[in-house]
């Protein structure tokens, strides 16, 4: 098993599948009256969050607690070199406290990589800047597999602000490893340069959402921040919604079996309409539930729970 989970690229197909299979076992725990396993008893998991992210933090916290780990929440919001303790000093502090795993969310791309050089324990990247968010990709893959029964051969459209999306990067890497075919959709200003060469050669780019819908098994809508408008990535929120938002008529152009995903938090009315978000095709609430199972599997496997 790998020691850290920093990038979707850290996972080969066998390892990723093992995590998804383990997550499926973990999911059965959630259905029990006592939602707790003793697997990580006596181990310490630190949630080191430099950004506000209630949903990701509580998902990891719930995952660690269900495995009976001791959880320390370290919120360092707004911290930076200029404002306070350096990441390295924080790392050494956590090290001294005996953290077995550090789950880190940070506004700077690569922060999890840096942290992994400074601590002995496992580092789980819970989102670093505009780089990656590998457990989100794992829970997305888990959700697709549970809904559609497979990953290999699926056509997945990832729609929106790919440029600034750590979710998109991790998904492209992981889905391509698992044999799905990803099409990135968005205005050209929000698609990063050389994306296929950078991440996965079989990735395609399309600027026309309507063109990809009829052949998509999965549509994953990304959150688009309204502030991007003032940076001239697109002219207005309304124009964005017209061209790249998923509404009812567009949803009905999808194949019968296709699902709609969103990593949350949603901008209802911007990239997704309430009709779509609340439709039976939407997996948004399942994704949250699956997140806990997948993060349990990741912590369990990284911390060698399988050898216990």
């Amino acid at each position, binding site marked *: 098993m790998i020691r850290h989970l920093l990038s979707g690229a850290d996972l080969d197909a066998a390892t990723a599948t093992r995590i998804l299979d383990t997550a499926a076992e973990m999911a059965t725990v959630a259905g029990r009256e006592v939602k707790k396993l003793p697997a990580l008893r006596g181990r310490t998991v630190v949630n080191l969050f430099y950004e506000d992210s209630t949903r990701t933090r509580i998902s990891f916290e719930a995952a660690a607690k269900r495995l009976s780990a001791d959880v320390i929440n370290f919120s360092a919001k707004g911290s*930076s070199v200029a404002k306070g303790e350096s990441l390295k000093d924080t790392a050494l502090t956590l090290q001294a406290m005996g953290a077995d795993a550090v789950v880190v969310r940070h506004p700077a791309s*690569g922060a999890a990589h840096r942290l992994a050089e400074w601590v002995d324990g496992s580092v789980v990247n819970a989102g*670093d800047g505009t780089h990656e968010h590998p457990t989100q990709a794992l829970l997305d893959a888990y959700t697709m597999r549970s809904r559609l029964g497979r990953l290999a051969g699926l056509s997945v459209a990832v729609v929106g602000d790919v440029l600034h999306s750590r979710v998109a990067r991790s998904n492209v890497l992981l889905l391509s490893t698992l044999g799905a075919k990803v099409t990135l959709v968005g205005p050209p200003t929000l698609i990063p*340069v050389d994306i296929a060469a*950078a991440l996965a050669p079989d990735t395609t780019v399309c600027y026309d959402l309507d063109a990809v819908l009829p052949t998509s098994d999965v549509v994953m809508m990304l959150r688009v921040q309204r502030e991007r408008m003032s940076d001239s990535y697109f002219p207005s929120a309304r124009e964005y919604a017209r061209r790249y938002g998923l509404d009812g008529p567009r949803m009905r152009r999808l194949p019968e079996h296709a699902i709609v995903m969103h990593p949350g938090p949603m901008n209802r009315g911007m990239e997704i309409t309430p009709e779509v978000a609340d439709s039976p095709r939407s997996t948004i609430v399942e994704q949250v539930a699956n997140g806990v199972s997948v993060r349990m599997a990741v912590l369990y496997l990284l911390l060698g729970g399988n050898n216990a």
Partner: protein
Amino acid sequence: MSAYLIKGVSPLGAAPTDLLIRDGVVAEAGSGLSAAGATVVDADGLVALPGLVDLHTHLREPGREDAETVESGSRAAALGGYTAVCAMANTSPVADTAGVVEQVWRLGREAGLVDVQPVGAVTVGLAGERLAELGAMADSAARVRIFSDDGHCVADPRLMRRALEYVKAFDGIIAQHAEEPRLTEGAQMHEGEVSTRLGLTGWPAVAEEAIIARDVLLAEHVGSRLHVCHVSTAGSVEVLRHAKARGVRVTAEVTPHHLLLTDVRAETYDPVYKVNPPLRTDDDVAALRAALADGVIDVIATDHAPHAVEDKECEWAYARPGMLGLETALSIALEVLGPRWDLIAERMSRTPARIAGLESHGVDPAPGAPANLTLVDPAARRVVEPGELASLSRNTPYAGMTLPGRVVATFLRGEATVLDGKAVR
């Protein structure tokens, strides 16, 4: 004054000879020289070059004496084979007045290891809003001729035009940090495949090329001298080639790191590889090497940029850009160009001395020449150990790399600043 008899040295790779250095000049050259009282330097197998001249050095004093001082930077320069360095203006306070440039100049004289030629800021506080007192700096004891807002681009085209025109009165030159600021907001590394993979905001090549294109046209329009700092892209080379063909008075420099390293180094997220302009691609490196050989790029300049540990041992986005360069530049020139000594002398000594107006530098070691020279062992190979560098900072991107060549001795106006590979003080 001391006298040195350098025995069996090969001037720029030519047949071995002896050089007698006395009274600050090369007094004699020839085989079998002897001189009573002269210190004998066994230079068998060594190559003599005119002392190197760096057009682009950050010495950090005043303001960041924890990262480098004029003295420590001078020592690093001498150990790198340099006899003159041009100290960039982005100190704190900024070198935008006669007082600050004279302070830096005086500190250089006191250190006495290289000639420290201050560069003056183009605009007050490097803010890009109004001209600094360029004439006062030119007339000061520091005799400033190169003006640069390096670290910042003189982005306002009208201000750039005025600066180019104004310095004609004292044969000054504007050294431009070519970076269109609106195209590089938040930029962290070269925009391309690697920045996409790493999720780091891209610094597109066009942000450099657009400013160079504008500035060569401005320089042509007003008939002024323009120098382009740290050219980093293949496209910039083509713009410069075109401008030179038209007769524009433009010169350009390239750094050692842009000749050797590429953006894939960023994959470690180790900010020791963060630099501005950023490391580019293999294609850019190839174009820069070719341009250096054919003369479209005139000089190698280090952009020696020391940074304290805490400014590099952090997240990539929070780290300051810049790399050490003085103590490794000649080795990288050898690695990239091979033992083409005349070309190395041209790109690292004669041409930079001419651009900076340093008449006693950049002169080949021959009878009558000022005794500003360096002796290099071309056969030596060394592993770069950050802890062994004379710079106060440790941010070398070459740590652990084995590089060719070693500076054995350096002489400034006839006095040794480096002997046996060690600084004399």
